[in-house]
């Protein structure tokens, strides 16, 4: 991605560094809270089943790098039909948290489970099922982590000063490797691994909450700026139709059949129903404080989704008349931010996708770690090991 305009100004880099420092600080505070040997694993991996409604809602929001990079690109490319693509998020909080939430909360307490394999193993009385669950979760989440690390590295790369990569390349004797990308990857990895490993589940949760609030703030800042700059949604829609064809305003989408109706039905199943089996969400269902907390978390998440996704659709439809004819649609988010906001505000808004990626990685890392510690090391290798 062309980084001109971002690396020229220190604002975005400062914002991301500040964001990183706050995340690390939350990890330290979480570590102090988790202290003590009694019930350490339960505290470290489940936050002592004490999550409040706000924390459950904002950390189950399933935001990832795709929310702020891929989704805007889809809206910019294919138009209004992408709203239907994501529309099941209106009901997903109810299905994902409400259908299984109480029973998972009850069974995890009754069985004493602190990991998902624990839960399956104890609930069905089957060590084999527990082991298989552990293997499946660790394998698929590890694979899922790779694109998240890449997204985090790319965001860091575009805000790094141009001369940082030059210095790195010179020191390393040159070569064809993308030095800025490697620096971005190193910074991102060190940060997220540090606060997750040090602070455990609570660190991941607290940084998730912090990051989710930054994301919402970023969207709410960008929304009026985009509306004002585009001349209104109707104008932006007609501009999009001029550029991409009538499909920009209608289904199945501009340019190609992005979202035929059969696929639309499938996505209502995928987001809202299969989301119930998302490991990071199920872990939160083992960790909420009580059923009242569950009720309010459903409510908060519904409002949060409406607050994030509806404005995102409007913003990136409007982007068609603000930045017409962008050849690389994946760049629309940072380019729009640079175009509309001053560099310091741009840094804050760019922290949104960075935070989304960080929160996804921290959640996944913790599940993989809990699988290794509880379901492999403690169950099979050293059952009598001390908790710390």
């Amino acid at each position: 991605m062309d980084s001109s305009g971002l690396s020229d100004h220190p604002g975005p880099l400062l914002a991301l560094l500040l964001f990183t420092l706050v995340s690390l600080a939350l990890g330290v505070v979480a570590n102090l809270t988790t202290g003590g040997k009694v019930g350490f694993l339960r505290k470290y991996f489940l936050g002592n089943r004490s999550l409040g409604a706000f924390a459950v809602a904002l950390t189950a929001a399933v935001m990832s790098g795709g929310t702020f990079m891929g989704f805007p690109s889809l809206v910019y490319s294919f138009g209004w039909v992408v709203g239907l693509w994501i529309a099941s998020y209106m009901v997903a909080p109810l299905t994902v948290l409400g259908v299984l939430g109480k029973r998972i909360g009850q069974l995890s307490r009754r069985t004493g489970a602190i990991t998902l394999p624990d839960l399956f193993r104890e609930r069905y009385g089957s060590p084999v099922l527990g082991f298989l669950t552990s293997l499946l979760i660790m394998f698929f989440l590890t694979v899922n982590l790779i694109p998240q690390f890449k997204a985090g590295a790319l965001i860091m790369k575009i805000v790094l000063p141009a001369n940082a990569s030059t210095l790195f390349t010179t020191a390393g004797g040159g070569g064809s490797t993308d030095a800025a990308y490697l620096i971005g990857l190193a910074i991102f990895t060190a940060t997220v691994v540090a606060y997750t490993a040090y602070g455990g589940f609570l660190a991941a949760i607290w940084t998730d909450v912090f990051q989710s609030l930054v994301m919402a703030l970023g969207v709410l800042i960008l929304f009026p700026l985009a509306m004002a700059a585009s001349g209104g949604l109707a104008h932006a829609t007609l501009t999009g139709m001029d550029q991409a064809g009538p499909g920009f305003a209608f289904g199945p989408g501009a340019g190609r059949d992005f979202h035929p109706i059969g696929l639309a039905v499938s996505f209502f199943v995928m987001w809202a129903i299969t989301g119930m089996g998302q490991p990071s969400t199920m872990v939160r269902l083992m960790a909420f404080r009580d059923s009242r907390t569950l009720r309010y978390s459903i409510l908060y998440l519904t409002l949060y989704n409406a607050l994030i996704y509806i404005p995102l659709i409007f913003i990136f439809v409007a982007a068609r008349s603000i930045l017409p004819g962008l050849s690389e649609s994946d760049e629309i988010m940072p380019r729009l931010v640079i175009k509309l906001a001053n560099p310091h505000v741009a840094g804050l808004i760019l922290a949104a996708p960075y935070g989304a990626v960080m929160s996804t990685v921290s959640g996944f890392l913790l599940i993989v770690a809990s699988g290794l510690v509880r379901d492999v090391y403690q169950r099979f290798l050293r059952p009598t090991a001390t908790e710390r």
Partner: protein
Amino acid sequence: MSRAETPPSDPCRVAEGQAPRSPVPGRRDDPVFVHACREAIIILSFWLAVTVYCCAYSYFFGYIRPGRPLGPDDVRPILGIPSWAFWGFVVPWLLCALFTVWFAGFYMADDDLGDDRAGELDADIRQGGADG
């Protein structure tokens, strides 16, 4: 010691006269299970209604189909939003939020989820290791 309850073949029902095989409340006597089932049925019915409405409305009023070309005159914006999108998913999204406020805020039952027995499970694992 296993704290698992025995799963009946039907996830929402225990056969007449069947006694639970573990020292936990039978499913029909367990208010958490009864409430969870009732709430799950309502939620899944609501999800089905939302899916059918959004997809059907969007398809019939907002999709370009063979024999039904659409152009700028068919956008008919409401607050700048194409009419089909406004009625197809924006308004349903807001109504869905209202339903959720009622359902989660007032309808769902507050149930006692029981005591956390993580300490017992941990002791079992250690005991198994010491014995083995």
